[in-house]
Each structure stands twice: as structure tokens, then as C-alpha cells.
């Protein structure tokens, strides 16, 4: 009992120090802010954090500490529920007291009207108020004890439950086995209706999404989907056909500028219909891909990487130059790019027209779904298979009768056309496009989308788009930590899942060691 007391109070101190530290560096309140933004209307401004989310963050930190403690204890010896309960209470009390001391000090200074910022530069009065749960010191202390206690108890209960169901590892294994048994794919095969219904449900979910999220999320979703479209295109070239492209942004820019020039009042004043312009942008980018693909189609090795890299720079410099300013707008770019007119169905259904950003998100979703469908069809077609074969072994693919040179160019053309569509959407969404948007970084991000998700995997690409473009947006509130955290996350991901987060599935990867005898047996006619 005594050891439990000392050990658990040690963990309580650790949890308390983590709490204090994360408050001091302003991490708790930014995390709380992010959570709040995710779940509420996103109206959060710096000085109003709903106390609930502060408590949630505090509770989570204590939760993890308690869980870690219980797990450690378990490996030491058998533990009764009472022991665990005592430990959890101690942890919550100790960490709660520690964090409360900090708050009493900070809070009473604030109540006396003293500017603590002089002493603690990182903390503004607003932040302190957040730590105080928007109340006074007394209530704040209560809140802290409540959240540390709840965090601790949740950990205890979850841990206890996992013990009851016979070791977490076993549970996980059981779940895995269950998953194997259920095998979504096979169910889909046997009951096509189930498949149709699930697809319908997903589509309905996607379609209702723009209506329920806030403007901020809509803008993040928009950019994520545009990158997802680009990722799908690049995945065809890099993931499937196995050719490396460094300058993918070139095709994106081609699409965006073609669209811009066709729909903006200046410089040409064509102001073409949205869909027609989208189609032309797609075709122009595809032609760009064809011209790039032609000279390298009979070469082997990563020439395409270098050629596209150069091409991207040429495109960027051209649209930026004053020489071409009469045709491309030069450094100023193109303004007032056209947007599609909202069809009247929406008005009829909803009583009033949708807001512009919501409507445009629907449009992006629509184009995205079209391209997603096309990508799926392509990947599992004869063409997709020959791309994969080419990626695996060019000589053998050729020996099988694949005309590798034309399939190479085909992959580039289709990938480029998809980037063109993404570019057109992007330009139309912003109603503006300029040379600064087509920096090398866009190519890097597009490539990262494909690699992080898992080369050649369509769901992986979508996940990659979310991680590369969505995550940094969510982390935006972490400001100074943002890129550090993002970088760290990427490194961790690549270490844990070097094949990408959602790699292509190829069933069993192990092979049983075999003896000559077995082989001999097998080979007997």
C-alpha cells in the first residue's frame, strides 16, 4: 500500500508538471481552442475558450498519465481494482493540487489587476483567464480537480475493462480476427446491395457535410480536396506507372492560367462558361503533359523528374515575367476569374440559394468524385495493370507485349490533365491566380501527398491530402509550434509506416521457408 502511495504520487507529480508546463508554454489553451474550433461554430477568438474544452485537455493529460501508471503497475504484479482506484485518486489529487497552485498564484495576481506578463512573457491575461476557466480562482481550482479526477477515473475504468476482457493485446488480436472474419470486401461481393447502400451512405454523408460545417472548415475542405485531386493525378504517374515527377505544379499552373484567361474580364475578356473553360483547361494541361512526355518516352530512368522540374520553372518564370504581362497578367496575376453560376435546383430545395463557398465546395466535391471514380476505374483496368507492370519491371512488361513508351506518355497525359482540372478549380475558387502560387513547394506537397499516403493507393492518396494540407491548417493555432509539430508527425509516420499510411494491399507477404525436398516434391510431374 505504501509503495502504491509513493509511486502514484510520483506519477501525480509528473502529470502535474506536464499540466503546468503545457499551460506555461500556452499549449493547453491552444489545444483547447483547436478542439473548440473543430466542434463548435469556429467563432472562437483568443479570449473566449469554453471552459469545457480546457477541462477536456487537462483531463486527457491526466488520463494518459494514469493509464501509463496502471499499465506499468500491472507488469509489476497482480493488482486489485482497489489498488488502482487508490492510485488513480492520488494521481488526480496530486496533479490537481499542483496545477491549482499555479492557478492560485496567477489568478490572484490577475484579480489584483497586476500584469503578470512582466514576469511571464508567454502568458497574456487572456491566456490566464482561459486557464482559470473564465471564472475566479476558487472555481478554477474546483474545475481542475474535477477534470484531473475524471481523467484519472476514466483511465482506471478503461484499464479495468480491458483487464476484464482478458488483456488488451488479446482483445486487439480478437478484433483483428473478427475483422478478418467479417471482411468487408467479401460481404460486398456476396451482397451487392450492401455495397450500394454503403456507397450511398458515404455519398450522403459527404453531401451533407458542407451544410453543417463552418466557413473555416469549408475553406480547409476545399483546399484538401483540390490537393486530393492533384494527388490522384500524380499517383497515376508516380504510384502506378512508376515515373518520378518533380514539377507537377507546372500542369496545375497550366490549368489555372488557362481557366483564368478564358473566364476573366482581363486581359482577353472572353468570360467563357465555367464547364467549357474547365474542360479546355484539362485538355491544355493534358497537351502540356504530352509534349513533356514525348521526348522521354523512349528513355529509361528518372529523366522525367528533371524534365518536369525544368518545365515547372519555365512555366513559373514565364507567367511571372513582364514580357508576357499582356497575356498572363505578369506578377500581378489574373483577377476576377469566373465562377460557375449556381443552378436553381438548390434554391428550389433549400428555399434560398446556397452561400457561395458552400456551393463551390459542392462543385469541388462533384469534380473530385468524378475523378475519383475515373482513377478507380483506371487503376483496375488493363491500362492500370500495365502501368503497374511497367513500374515493377520495364523489360518484362515490354516482353509481355506492353508498348511501354506509349503507356508512359499516357500516364503523364492523364496525370497532367487531372492537375489541370485541379488548377482550374483552384483559380476559380480564389477568383484570382498569380505566379507566386505556383512555387516549387506545391510540387513537393503534391508528391508528399502521394508518398505519405502510400504510393499507388487511392485511399492512401486521400489520407495524404488530408495530412499534408488539412493537418497544417488544424495546427495553425499552434502557430510557432506548427511546422515543428508537422515535421515531427511526418517523421514519425514515415518511421512507423514506411510504405505509407494506407499502402496498397497485396495480401500475405510472408513465405514459409522450404527445403529442396518440398520443391522437388512439387516439381514432380
Amino acid at each position: 500500500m505504501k509503495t502504491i502511495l509513493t509511486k502514484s504520487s510520483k506519477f501525480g507529480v509528473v502529470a502535474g508538471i506536464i499540466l503546468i508546463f503545457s499551460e506555461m508554454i500556452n499549449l493547453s489553451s491552444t489545444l483547447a481552442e483547436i478542439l473548440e474550433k473543430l466542434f463548435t461554430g469556429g467563432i472562437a477568438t483568443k479570449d473566449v475558450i469554453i471552459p469545457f474544452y480546457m477541462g477536456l485537455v487537462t483531463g486527457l493529460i491526466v488520463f494518459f498519465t494514469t493509464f501509463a501508471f496502471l499499465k506499468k503497475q500491472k507488469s509489476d504484479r497482480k493488482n486489485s481494482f482497489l489498488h488502482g482506484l487508490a492510485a488513480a485518486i492520488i494521481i488526480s489529487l496530486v496533479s490537481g493540487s499542483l496545477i491549482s497552485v499555479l492557478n492560485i498564484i496567477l489568478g490572484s495576481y490577475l484579480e489584483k489587476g497586476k500584469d503578470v506578463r512582466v514576469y511571464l512573457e508567454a502568458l497574456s491575461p487572456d491566456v490566464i483567464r482561459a486557464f482559470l476557466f473564465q471564472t475566479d480562482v476558487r472555481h478554477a481550482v474546483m474545475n481542475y480537480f474535477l477534470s484531473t479526477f475524471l481523467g484519472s477515473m476514466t483511465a482506471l475504468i478503461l484499464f479495468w475493462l480491458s483487464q476484464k476482457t482478458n488483456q488488451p493485446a488479446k482483445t486487439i488480436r480478437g478484433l483483428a480476427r473478427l475483422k478478418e472474419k467479417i471482411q468487408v470486401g467479401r460481404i460486398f461481393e456476396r451482397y451487392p446491395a450492401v455495397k450500394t447502400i454503403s456507397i450511398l451512405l458515404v455519398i450522403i454523408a459527404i453531401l451533407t457535410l458542407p451544410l453543417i460545417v463552418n466557413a473555416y472548415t469549408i475553406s480547409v475542405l476545399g483546399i484538401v480536396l483540390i490537393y486530393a485531386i492533384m494527388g490522384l493525378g500524380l499517383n497515376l504517374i508516380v504510384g502506378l506507372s512508376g515515373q518520378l515527377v518533380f514539377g507537377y505544379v507546372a500542369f496545375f499552373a497550366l490549368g489555372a492560367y488557362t481557366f483564368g484567361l478564358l473566364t476573366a474580364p482581363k486581359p482577353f475578356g472572353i468570360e467563357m462558361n465555367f464547364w467549357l473553360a474547365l474542360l479546355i483547361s484539362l485538355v491544355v494541361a493534358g497537351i502540356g503533359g504530352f509534349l513533356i512526355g514525348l521526348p522521354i518516352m523512349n528513355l529509361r530512368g528518372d529523366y522525367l523528374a528533371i524534365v518536369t522540374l525544368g518545365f515547372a520553372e519555365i512555366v513559373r518564370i514565364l507567367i511571372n515575367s513582364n514580357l508576357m504581362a499582356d497575356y498572363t497578367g505578369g506578377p500581378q496575376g489574373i483577377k476576377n476569374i469566373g465562377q460557375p453560376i449556381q443552378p436553381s435546383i438548390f434554391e428550389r430545395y433549400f428555399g434560398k440559394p446556397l452561400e457561395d463557398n458552400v456551393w463551390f465546395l459542392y462543385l469541388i466535391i462533384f469534380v473530385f468524385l468524378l475523378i475519383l471514380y475515373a482513377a478507380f476505374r483506371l487503376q483496375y483496368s488493363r491500362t492500370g495493370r500495365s502501368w503497374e507492370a511497367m513500374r515493377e519491371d520495364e523489360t518484362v512488361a515490354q516482353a509481355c507485349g506492353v508498348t511501354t513508351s506509349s503507356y508512359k506518355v499516357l500516364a503523364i497525359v492523364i496525370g497532367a490533365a487531372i492537375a489541370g482540372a485541379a488548377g482550374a478549380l483552384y483559380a476559380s475558387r480564389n477568383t484570382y491566380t498569380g505566379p507566386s502560387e505556383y512555387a516549387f513547394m506545391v510540387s513537393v506537397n503534391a508528391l508528399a501527398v502521394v508518398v505519405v499516403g502510400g504510393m499507388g493507393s487511392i485511399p492512401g492518396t486521400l489520407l495524404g491530402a488530408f495530412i499534408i494540407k488539412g493537418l497544417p491548417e488544424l495546427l495553425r493555432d499552434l502557430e510557432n509550434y506548427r511546422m515543428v509539430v508537422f515535421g515531427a508527425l511526418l517523421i514519425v509516420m514515415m518511421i512507423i509506416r514506411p510504405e505509407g499510411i494506407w499502402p496498397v494491399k497485396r495480401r500475405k507477404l510472408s513465405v514459409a521457408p522450404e527445403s529442396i525436398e518440398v520443391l522437388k516434391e512439387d516439381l514432380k510431374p
Partner: protein
Amino acid sequence: MYFEIKDLQVYYRAIHALKGISLTVNKGEIVALIGGNGAGKSSTLNSISGLVQGQSGIIIYKDEEITGLPTDMIVKKGIIQVPEGRHIFPKLTVQENLEMGAFLNDNKAQMEEDMEHVYQLFPRMKERRTQPGGTLSGGEQQMLAIGRGLMGHPDLMLLDEPSMGLAPILVEQIFDIIFDINQTGTSILLVEQNAQMALAIADRGFVLETGEIVVSGTGQELLNDPKVQAAYLGGESEQEKLQKGDYYF
């Protein structure tokens, strides 16, 4: 004429890899092309199948000149090459590998028949059909490569060193299978360094040295030819090689 090469020359820039070779394959024959490393064996097969372009000379197949045709045309005509070095598609499953072999075959029924035939020849492939090709053992990969060639429904099969790097026991099995394939009516041009085994099953043989054919004759004649014996049938025994660990399984 079923298959004939006349005065075939291949250059790689300054390297004169084939200096005008001529050979014939009659319908239903196994013809062995023997030679050491760098003799030009692979270059010969690659120019037949169109993997190497820019050769001079004439290649005739079923009374038709096929010199310089692109590979897919050659494959369509029924000349299928199994490249050297157990080349397979490592990430595609065994079944997908085999399907790739029938890439130009639009006749689904025939493809399934060929697949059944391959699975009969190599029961192990059937067992492992959902497994990525790269996870097979060396011997199995060679069988997969041959199986993939068969999926192209070859009339004339070009085999490039099928026994390379395999244990003697596997080599024997592979040659048995080549013999079986030939028995079902497929003509075979077999490139080998393992002269002993190749000539034993070959109807006729040609010996290639630095881009020129130096000896030719029936399999038996070549096996008994003192020059061939000295150059290709001596040296390390298979047992010694095995002990040195030169083999993959």
C-alpha cells in the same frame, strides 16, 4: 521456313556484340544457343523479340520477315521471350503475374485454359497465386517467369538462361519442364551457359563466342565435340558450386 536468322549484327555504340550470326529453328525443335558470359546470347534473343532495335540482318518467322518489329507485334505473332535473371513483377500477385503474360490475348477462354495448363505444370503456383511474386523463392520465381511466358500462348519460346543461379536439383526439374513444354508442340530457342543440360535435351545446338557462331550441330554431336567439351563441359562441377553457396533457392 519456320524460323531463321540471317547475318544478324548488333552494335551497342562501339561494341560489336553480334558479328553476323545465322541460325535456324525448325517447327517443334529445341535449339540450344550455348556461350559464355558476354558472348551475345541475350543480344540475339533481344533482337528477335524487338527489345533491342537497330540491328542489321534478316529475321524470318513463318516465311515472313519480322526484323525490327516492335515487341508487341512480335509477341502477337507468338514469339515469347522469358528474359534472363528470373524477372517477375515482385509486387503483383502470382496470378496477376501470369495474367500479364496474356496481356495481348483477348480470348478469355483460351487464357483460362493456358492458366490451367500453367497450374498443372507448376502446382506450387496455384497454391501461391494470391501471394506477391517477390515473396517466392528463386526457383519458384523462375517457374513463374516461364509460366508467364506460357500464358502468352507461344508458338516459339525464347528462354534466356532459365537455369541461372539455381541449385542442381532445380535445374534438372526446369529442364524437364522445358522438355515437357516442347512435347506439347512449342518450339524452343534455349539460351544457356549450362551446356551439358541444354544440349542433352536439344535437337540441335549452336555455340556462340564473342558474337560469332563457332560450332553447330545436333545436341549429341556437340556434346561429343572435344572443343565444346573443353570450353563448356569441364570446370567446376555442380556439386562444388553448391558447396560454395553460389545458388539461390
